[in-house]
């Protein structure tokens, strides 16, 4: 069998975690010329000079040495700040719940990093994401990862086929448990490293504390939609639609939930009961829509959609509007849809693309109280 892999240069983004470590290992086993690159996107150096990036890069170095592949570090702090973090803060200022990972994939991992890799003569870039690329009649599609629990296409919805044709996801056809197993078998130093949780630049830190370093918190009132006073909130940015924890409303009956925000008057709206009517909507307006394979998209079509990561798919009808916007109507009403989060569309296993949830509607009327 003719194997061209040794003449194919793959630059893999390595985070120092187990997924990208195993992804690099698999590529190396397949005979590719593999180069590992660590992206330093954030500086969290503390007063003792300790920075998680240093420790993560150290893991990258050790894994690459185990695999005998070259490794480098690139600094995208400026790009990350300009493109991802600024967006993140702006969205919180606007009372929404942003998804920085989606923007990081679009602007950093599959743009700045891809460009950098191409400048190193790469034929492909790879990452440890759980997703798959499939070529079909000259088009490159993105499929969900086989591991339903780990599928990360939700965060990759802003990629396009121009990018995908240069991308490899070595873990797309694997279960996370298999990945851990391989890491153990090969004694990779990252084999039992804990998965990172939460937003990368916040890490294990307290979210509220982190955000308060960048945005002034404006405490205000908590009220029901009928205007009944229910207490005080610490700042609208700390709450998201459907949230139950941290409201501190006691009393009899069902628990209380966040149903909306009034930015002008700095009021947090709360209502009682998990299934409270105010939490439900039947359609949404999505903006900044990206289609991975634009040529295939019709003006109106049905498909499935996710409104948050790790949620089950729901049946929807999509109607394209001007300016990369779309109206998404749900077959069944949905609970706690949150502006700022991504809505991502699927046709079976194929991820079609996605956009940002901008407004939420019920019975053709916008639910203005959501914020």
């Amino acid at each position, binding site marked *: 069998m003719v194997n061209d892999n040794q003449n194919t240069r793959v630059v893999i983004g390595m985070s120092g975690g187990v997924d990208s470590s195993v992804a690099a290992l698999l590529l190396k086993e397949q005979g590719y010329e593999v180069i590992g690159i660590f992206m330093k996107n954030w500086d969290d150096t503390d007063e003792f000079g300790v*920075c998680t990036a240093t420790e993560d890069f150290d893991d990258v170095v050790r894994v690459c040495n185990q695999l005998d592949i070259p490794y480098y570090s690139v600094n995208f702090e400026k790009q990350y700040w300009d493109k991802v973090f600024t967006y993140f803060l702006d969205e919180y200022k606007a009372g929404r719940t942003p998804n920085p990972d989606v923007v990081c994939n679009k602007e950093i991992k599959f743009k700045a990093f891809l460009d950098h890799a191409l400048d190193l003569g790469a034929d492909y870039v790879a990452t440890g994401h759980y997703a798959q690329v499939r070529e079909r009649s000259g088009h490159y599609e993105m499929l969900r990862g086989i591991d339903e629990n780990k599928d990360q296409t939700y965060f990759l919805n802003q990629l396009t086929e121009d990018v995908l044709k240069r991308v490899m996801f070595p873990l797309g056809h694997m279960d996370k448990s298999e990945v851990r197993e391989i890491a153990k078998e090969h004694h990779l130093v990252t084999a039992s490293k804990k998965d990172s949780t939460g937003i990368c630049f916040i890490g294990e830190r307290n979210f509220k504390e982190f955000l308060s370093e960048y945005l002034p918190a404006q405490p205000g009132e908590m009220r029901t939609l009928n205007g009944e006073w229910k207490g005080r909130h610490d700042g609208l940015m700390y709450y998201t639609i459907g949230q139950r924890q941290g409201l501190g409303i006691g009393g009899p009956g069902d628990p209380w939930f966040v149903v909306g925000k009034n930015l002008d008057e700095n009021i947090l709206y709360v209502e009682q009961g998990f299934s409270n009517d105010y939490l439900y909507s039947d359609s949404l307006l999505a903006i900044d829509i990206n289609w991975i394979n634009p040529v295939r998209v019709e003006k109106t079509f049905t498909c499935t959609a996710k409104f948050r990561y790790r949620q089950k798919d729901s049946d929807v009808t999509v109607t394209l509007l001007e300016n990369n916007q779309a109206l998404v109507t749900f077959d069944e009403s949905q609970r706690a849809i949150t502006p700022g989060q991504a809505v991502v569309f699927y046709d079976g296993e194929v991820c079609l693309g996605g956009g940002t949830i901008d407004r939420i509607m019920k019975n053709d009327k916008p639910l203005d109280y959501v914020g």
Partner: protein
Amino acid sequence: MKAIYLDHAATTPLSEEVLEAMIPIYNDIFGNPSSVHSFGRKARQILDNARRTIADSIHANEKDIIFTSGATEANNLALIGTAKANRNKGNHIITTEQEHHAVLHAAEYLEEEGFNVTYLPINKDGKISINDLKNALTDDTILVSVMYVNNETGVIQPINEIADALTEADVIFHTDAVQAFGLIDINVETLKVDLLSVSSHKINGPKGIGFLYTRENIPIYAQLYGGEQERKRRPGTENMVGIVGFQKAVELVVKNRNLWQEQYKQYKEAFLAVLKNEKINFEINGDPKSMIPSTINLSFPGINVEKMLMNLDIEGVAASSGSACTAGSIDPSHVLVAMFGKDTERTQNSIRFSFGIHNTLEDVEEAARRLAKIVHRLTRNESR
């Protein structure tokens, strides 16, 4: 593809002769030079012999050579050891913005200990000005530390003029001569330095050994506590294998220095000629008229240095830039920042190439061709 090593200012490969000189020590000489028996005496004999060779290489008295674990320790000892021993005379130290971190961070430590430190600025030629030095001197100044040759630019500092400017003042003059020793004949009988640091691994000797020359009667406090080795100024059983390897490396330097000077001059000219031929846009950092021939630091306008170094490595050319930051990515070099300021692209697009004894003219030209190819490709990509 042949890998070409052009990073000799970082470290150098061991000479074969050095390795050969070290093997018998590993095999036969295990005695402690301080021991009062035949095994110890044998080691002591070899140690004395090495010390003599090394002292001779700078025309020093052998009692004035303190072996250390390398130049970092030598520089630390020079600054901290003399500052603390001369505190009764004054509290002020002068150094420059472009010193190696082994000097800069030692100076910062001394600031924390209550000393005042003046960091002399560096001009675009890569040198300090004698006037700045004179103006910085006060009655309180006890120590001046200026490197002989900068490790990033290869620029030779006006070390004799500096020494002359200090003759009137009652100050101790230290020079970090790590990059100079391999190519410049140093004579402490005529050069008025009091302290001088040299490292073995920069001259094809083993790592982990260096020395500090200390002129007689310069008060200096040991920075380690232990035995009475090195005339009580640096305790610890001597690194015999390292010292003997260092000795051989020094012998080779003394013998070949002039030859290497000529060779590297030719390499540098050839390297730059290829780049000019290939119409590469570059500028030399520092004054080419006062530079050691083994080092050349080039700025490539419009080129990102991280990308460039990775590409060079992938193409088998080893070079370097600035100092590596903690997460592996590159911080702007403090030397170039001192020369050109913070806000210039020049600190972000400069690379150092440094030649060594195992390079050939063909290697150097081939490296320049690979470099040119990368610059052309990156320039094309930038405009895409």
